[in-house]
């Protein structure tokens, strides 16, 4: 398992897998309107809405996958999973950019004043916009150089903003649907579990620190194997 996780090919495969949703969109774009093609494999009657929903969905999915890395590392005892976290987080940002770009360029056709009004007035757009903007500093500070410059502690503090982005992303989806809230609720439950795991670990870690007389936070993996 470890050798698979540390293989450089795994990273390539994961990278390519992360591009599949984009590939699907491009494929659908190419096949859109081809006669005789199964109609469930093109953009359908409202291509812009289709692209908006697909990119939005994948932004949320990648946020969820990124947030799942830390709990999975601990539960599966596979610390090497960390190698994929930055890439997955950046893919969340990538699909977020496509989602935001679709809204700007295809849906609103660069009607800036109308969009700014929407951001202020429509709460589902306000939260979606906020979730996206919060991801920008995280993407910018994702390089090793930036981590060094910020220092690990400050970097970790800053990157907790992903929790806010994920929560706002789910609210954005929940406020968007008309009546069938099953899918947004599913995202809410998953994000809730992933954040609850962190809270649980934090409380557990604090108990440990207190027992150890405070001071250094024990490495959770050592605590588990001890």
């Amino acid at each position, binding site marked *: 398992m470890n050798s698979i996780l540390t293989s450089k090919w795994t990273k390539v*495969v994961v990278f390519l897998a992360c591009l599949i949703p984009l590939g699907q969109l491009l494929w659908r774009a190419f096949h859109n309107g081809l006669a005789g093609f*199964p*109609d469930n494999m093109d953009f*359908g009657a409202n291509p812009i*809405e289709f692209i908006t929903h697909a990119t939005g969905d994948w932004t949320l999915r990648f946020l969820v996958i990124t947030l799942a890395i830390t709990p999975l590392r601990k539960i599966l005892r596979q610390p090497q999973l960390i190698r994929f976290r930055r890439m997955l987080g950046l893919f969340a940002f990538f699909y977020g950019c496509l989602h935001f770009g679709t809204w700007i360029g295809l849906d*609103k056709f660069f009607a800036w004043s109308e969009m700014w009004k929407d951001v202020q007035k429509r709460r*589902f757009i306000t939260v979606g916009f906020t979730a996206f903007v919060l991801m920008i500093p995280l993407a910018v500070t994702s390089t090793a150089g930036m981590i060094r410059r910020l220092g690990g502690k400050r970097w970790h503090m800053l990157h907790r903003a992903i929790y806010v982005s994920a929560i706002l992303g789910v609210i954005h989806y929940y406020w968007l649907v*008309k*009546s069938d809230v099953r899918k947004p609720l599913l995202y809410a439950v998953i994000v809730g579990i992933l954040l609850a795991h962190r809270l649980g670990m934090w409380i557990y870690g604090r108990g440990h620190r207190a027992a150890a007389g405070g001071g250094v936070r024990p490495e959770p993996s050592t605590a588990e194997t001890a």
Partner: protein
Amino acid sequence: MVVKKAPDLTYKDVTPKTLYMGRRNFLFGLAAAYGAVVGYKKLTRLLEGPATGSTPVKLTGVTKWPGSTTEKETSLEDVTHYNNFYEFGTSKTDPAANARNFVTAPWSISIEGEVKNKRKFSMDEIMKLAPLEERIYRHRCVEGWSIVVPWIGYPFSALVKLAEPTSKAKFVALESYYDPKQMPLGGSAGIELPYVEGLRLDEAMNSLTLLTVGMYDETLPNQDGAPVRLVIPWKYGFKSIKSLVRIRFVQEQPPTTWNIANAHEYGFYSNVNPSVDHPRWSQATERRLGEFRRRPTLMFNGYADQVASMYAGMDLKKYY
């Protein structure tokens, strides 16, 4: 002088055969996965078998209504594969996929309430009640998309006149067919079913309000509200109730499904109005299916001449 150049690559730089094969297998794998997806989707279609529900048939003796819009008709494919019919699922492509086995015969509409003639009209009677007209109307969904559809039907007023409402009748309450066995996804739609709608009596009598039995030269496809529905072109699409089974003439404003689900967002009137926003989005523009750019939405969906007088003096921000 011969400059000896160190070779760039040594034998140990050669890609190991396993990795090389891995790459090739990976590419083959991608292609195979790709083919499998396409094949699977085609196969599921085949396995579903032929549809067992009612299917559209050609309508004859239809005259062309002179008031039709000259705007380009939306393609039948788009109108039948992108719409809302929550009884068959909440995604836009669900109705086409899930209404294929919907059986709509026998069918009747029950007339009840404050009328002289409480009775049922069979589908045969409904088809012959008045001459069929083709009317090309603009149709605007509250969600911000629109279509242009050649409907076939006749003014709803013809049926209302036969029912002979009494002086107590001020509103009509309308109800859709709902059978959880035929519509298993209705239970998770997030709205109360059966679907109910309503109109003020003068709105019901307006000559634009169309009792609709067909579109595009044929009877209605299941997913578009077969076998009989209303089309009220100056109101948001959800007012145009599908698969109509009950018409009740009442004294008080009747409850309506989307108003029950969210009174703040969907009013009883729900007239198309570009200056009254939905709380979550602007209604100023719309996307016509088949068009790339949004287009401006028209007051009363462009039917102000025929309907604005009914709302004279009303605050349309209050009665949205």
